[in-house]
């Protein structure tokens, strides 16, 4: 139990911090209890095996995993550029990358619609040349989730790269390793815990994505309706179903975060 060891070495925590900290904790716990309190336990198995929920679950799993994979392929190199490359306007680039964290997701969805929609800046020409249509499709769901979730990965990995002592990389390079080999054999293994933590956060954010999805990808059962959208729809028709789906989302996200924390986070 590292918690006990630490409290022995640093003495007792100041009472004010304990009170304020516990208030902070309560603020997170009470809404969860509010949800638990309304769970219709008897009806839950039926509610969660309805076609709407199964469709939404399938789409949520596919879209959140795809968004995490895309974020990994293009987000990690972006984090590397931000941490290691020197270029003008880096501060602005970094702000743009973190913007989706503070923007209302609806704004992100609107921006995606006007950029990648059928009449959009990029989406228009793309649609004319390839016939591809982003909104109202699974692609739209994946893009919306990637847009809001990837900053978590970029920030986490960039932070890890900053904290990484470059002497190991320099040593490997001095021994004749190519730049790619240094990245593959030294850099990536050394930032692995942060990389995995970042991927977990990215996945969790993508799994819970609502605003950008409903704005950009629309809301259609079996095609673009993910679990959060199903909760939103159910809230106005069957509140028990909304609570049951919410419960599942809390449960799944919590399990993933706890599992990863024990294995990889420090």
């Amino acid at each position, binding site marked *: 139990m590292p918690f006990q060891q630490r409290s022995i070495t640093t003495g007792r925590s100041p009472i004010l911090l304990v009170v304020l900290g516990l208030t902070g904790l309560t603020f997170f716990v009470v809404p969860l209890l509010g949800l638990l309190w309304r769970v219709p336990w008897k009806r839950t198995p039926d509610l969660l095996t309805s076609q709407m929920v199964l469709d939404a679950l399938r789409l949520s799993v596919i879209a959140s995993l795809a968004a995490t994979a895309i974020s990994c392929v293009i987000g990690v190199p972006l984090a590397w550029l931000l941490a290691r490359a020197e270029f003008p306007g880096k501060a602005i680039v*970094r702000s743009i990358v973190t913007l989706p964290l503070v923007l209302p997701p609806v704004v992100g969805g609107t921006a995606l619609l006007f950029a990648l929609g059928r009449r959009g800046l990029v989406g228009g020409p793309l649609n004319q040349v390839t016939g591809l249509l982003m909104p109202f499709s699974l692609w739209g769901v994946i893009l919306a989730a990637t847009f809001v979730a990837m900053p978590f990965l970029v920030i986490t990995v960039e932070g890890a790269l900053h904290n990484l002592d470059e002497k190991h990389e320099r040593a490997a390079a001095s021994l004749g390793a190519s730049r790619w080999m240094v990245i593959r054999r030294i850099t990536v293994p050394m930032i692995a815990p942060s990389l995995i933590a970042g991927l977990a956060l990215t996945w969790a954010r993508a799994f819970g994505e609502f605003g950008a999805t*409903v704005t950009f990808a629309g809301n*259609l059962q079996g095609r673009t309706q993910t679990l959060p959208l199903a909760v939103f729809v159910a809230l106005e028709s069957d509140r028990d179903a909304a609570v049951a789906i919410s419960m599942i989302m809390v449960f799944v996200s919590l399990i993933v975060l706890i599992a990863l924390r024990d294995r990889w986070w420090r």
Partner: protein
Amino acid sequence: MAKIWVVIGLVLLLSTACSESSSEYDSTGSFAPTPSGEDQVLVSAATSLTAVFAELSSEFESANPGIDVVLNFAGSTALREQILEGAPIDVFASADRSNMQRAVESGEVEGRPEIFARNVLQIAVSAGNPADVTGLDDFARSELLIGLCISTVPCGELAREALAKEGVTPSIDSVEPNVRALLTKVEAGELDAGITYLTDVLFASDAIEGIDLPSGQNVIAEYPIAVLTNARSPAAAAMFMKFVLSGEAQSILHEYGFISP
């Protein structure tokens, strides 16, 4: 450097957000405590009433200087939920009978609701009608991008009723949470057609065109209004309701495309 930019960006974001919301509050009256002698009437009205109720409330306020009308717009279902959860609302104007009926059954309504307006459906397409939509039959064309309001709000319920009456099974591509969200996507040209109210199309931008439904195919929306039992200023609330039913208010509603009951 990086931190400075983030701070500047956040300050700009927050300042625009604040100025926007404060100007919005000014147009509907302030939420600050009113000076003594001034009654405040809190009106929850359906989204499709946004434009016309803004005008109705300013007309009412200038005729009754002691009363301040504050407007709260959302989908009728969301408004009904807020009322059932105990929101301190004085007047409820719904876009359908069923949400009003739920409020009546829960004992939230003082007296009886009255229908103050009717509305009809219209097909909304983007300017120039590029997909060549002519009627409800086109909603079955799978190559078109079709949107409807969600079935839990009145515009979605009525649209499905009209389609069912014609025996059309729509090939839906998106189900939007409310009328405004649906109009925005038709306006942007992302959806080829949607079904909204005539009044929404009338006051939408030039990027939207309306296609009338033959009267035999159309479905009529009825808007009931009522004073609520939780009203903080019941007398002023009753005055506002009476005004909405008056000839003066009816002619304003008519200008906005609504039909008198």
